[in-house]
């Protein structure tokens, strides 16, 4: 086998976190609701922490606390952006690159808006996030998704060939298709894809969400859709988005 070491120019995908806050404690407060204590929400993607929106920089920043916080969410911070030079030494100690200006040409960044994790109201009309969906491979899951299991497709669709059970969580940037019972928490269009849909042969989840617009079914499902073929899509009426949950008419 060749032992030649090669250095190639390459591009890789990651997540950009735009934060107006630099205090780990404040971040934890703000993000707690969104992730509701879900450890490792992300799947170990590299991340750049963008602090260009920070107004008043404190004298001291707890960089290691910040890194630890984002690691707990399942991200791997590799660098920061928009940070004053006075912090360079501190960043170096943590092996974080200060990627200002040219080093990082951010493409039309797609916001990775995570779905709400702990909804309190039944229907939450919200302004959906826009985003560009890319062609990506489909994830097929052949076994039932069980309580406590999470299927996460950061790109593309998820097809559940054996359904999901109460307590499961399915998150896809694209659409979610389900053969068999659909239970648990089902979040499609997680990257902001407004066109994403949820399609199921036996509908019965605890929560559905498309591009961050979600609905829970605390009082059970109406008979017209419970355990029947159903599709869920996003409908925009006068700038307000609503989930349209309707039975699929089969011939």
């Amino acid at each position, binding site marked *: 086998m060749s032992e030649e070491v090669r250095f190639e120019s390459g591009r890789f995908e990651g997540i950009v976190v735009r934060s107006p806050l630099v205090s780990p404690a404040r971040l934890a407060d703000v993000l707690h609701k969104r992730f509701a204590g879900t450890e490792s929400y992300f799947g170990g993607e590299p991340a750049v922490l963008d602090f260009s929106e920070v107004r008043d920089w404190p004298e001291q920043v707890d960089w290691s606390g910040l890194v630890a916080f984002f690691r707990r969410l399942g991200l791997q911070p590799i660098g920061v952006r928009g940070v004053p030079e006075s912090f360079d030494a501190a960043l170096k100690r943590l092996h974080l690159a200060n990627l200002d200006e040219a080093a990082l040409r951010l493409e039309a960044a797609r916001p990775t808006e995570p779905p709400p994790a702990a909804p309190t109201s039944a229907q939450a009309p919200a302004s959906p996030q826009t985003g560009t969906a890319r062609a990506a491979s489909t994830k097929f899951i052949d076994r*039932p998704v*069980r*309580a*406590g299991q999470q299927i996460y497709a950061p790109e593309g669709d998820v097809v559940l060939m054996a359904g999901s059970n109460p307590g499961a969580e399915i998150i896809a940037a694209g659409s979610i298709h389900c053969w068999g019972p659909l239970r648990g928490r089902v979040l499609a269009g997680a990257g902001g894809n407004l066109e994403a849909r949820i399609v199921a042969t036996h509908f019965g989840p605890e929560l559905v969400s498309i591009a961050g617009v979600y609905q829970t079914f605390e009082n059970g499902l109406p008979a017209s859709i419970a355990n029947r073929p159903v599709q869920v899509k996003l409908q925009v009426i006068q700038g307000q988005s609503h989930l349209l949950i309707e039975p699929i008419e089969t011939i």
Partner: protein
Amino acid sequence: MRIVVVTSGKGGVGKTTTSAAFASGLALRGFKTAVVDFDVGLRNLDLIMGCERRVVYDFVNVLQGEAKLTQALIKDKHVDTLHILPASQTKDKEALTEEGVEKVMRELEAMGFDYVVCDSPAGIERGALMALLFADEAIVVTNPEVSSVRDSDRILGILQSKSRRAIEGREPVKEHLLVTRYSAKRVEEGEMLSYKDIQELLRVPLIGVIPESDAVLHASNQGVPAIHLKGTDVAEAYADVVARFLGEDKPLRFVSYEKPSLIKRLFGST
């Protein structure tokens, strides 16, 4: 050698009763069988097997090199081909290490055992993970109630991700669903989930339904595995489970309820 874990997530559903009866049933069929108690700190398999007075060394002693496996294995008083490896009541459950458990399993295989039945503790902590780690097959014990079914679902998920077979990407652990403490009468009256409901929720092949019975309590108090209670529905149901496990075709019994006839109601059942 096949390693079978008896697990459930939830406590008090009948794991140890099932482990004792199932292991005894395999041994009665002539298979050299060991039943291992993974509930370190709360041992009770030895009580149900009626050998608590014969425990000298335990599983943790073996893991820590203080005793040989042959010294710790207790020969069952009912069936010659059955051996019990009791848990420790005094040791910490941290004593269960992956390397230690693997070594014991290898040794059991070298000793010519056909089956090892691992009696898992409740929960999803270390003891439960160690019990399922090396499993080839799993009997998931479930009661006909929603919380038990949900916990079983959780443990099935863990089997699919944390077992050696899953980690190494081998053929997945073969799963069997066992419904215990089943009362056909209460199902009929709508107070309990039916075994069909449970199977529909968990979507795992059903290996048997064990009826709720006072005989189980008597058996465990006397230290006799339930399968030895000749003539009881519980013993027959467990014998059916063993038969189905070995690939025999047995129709389900004790799952339908017939209203007692007028005469029976007047004069009491016999």
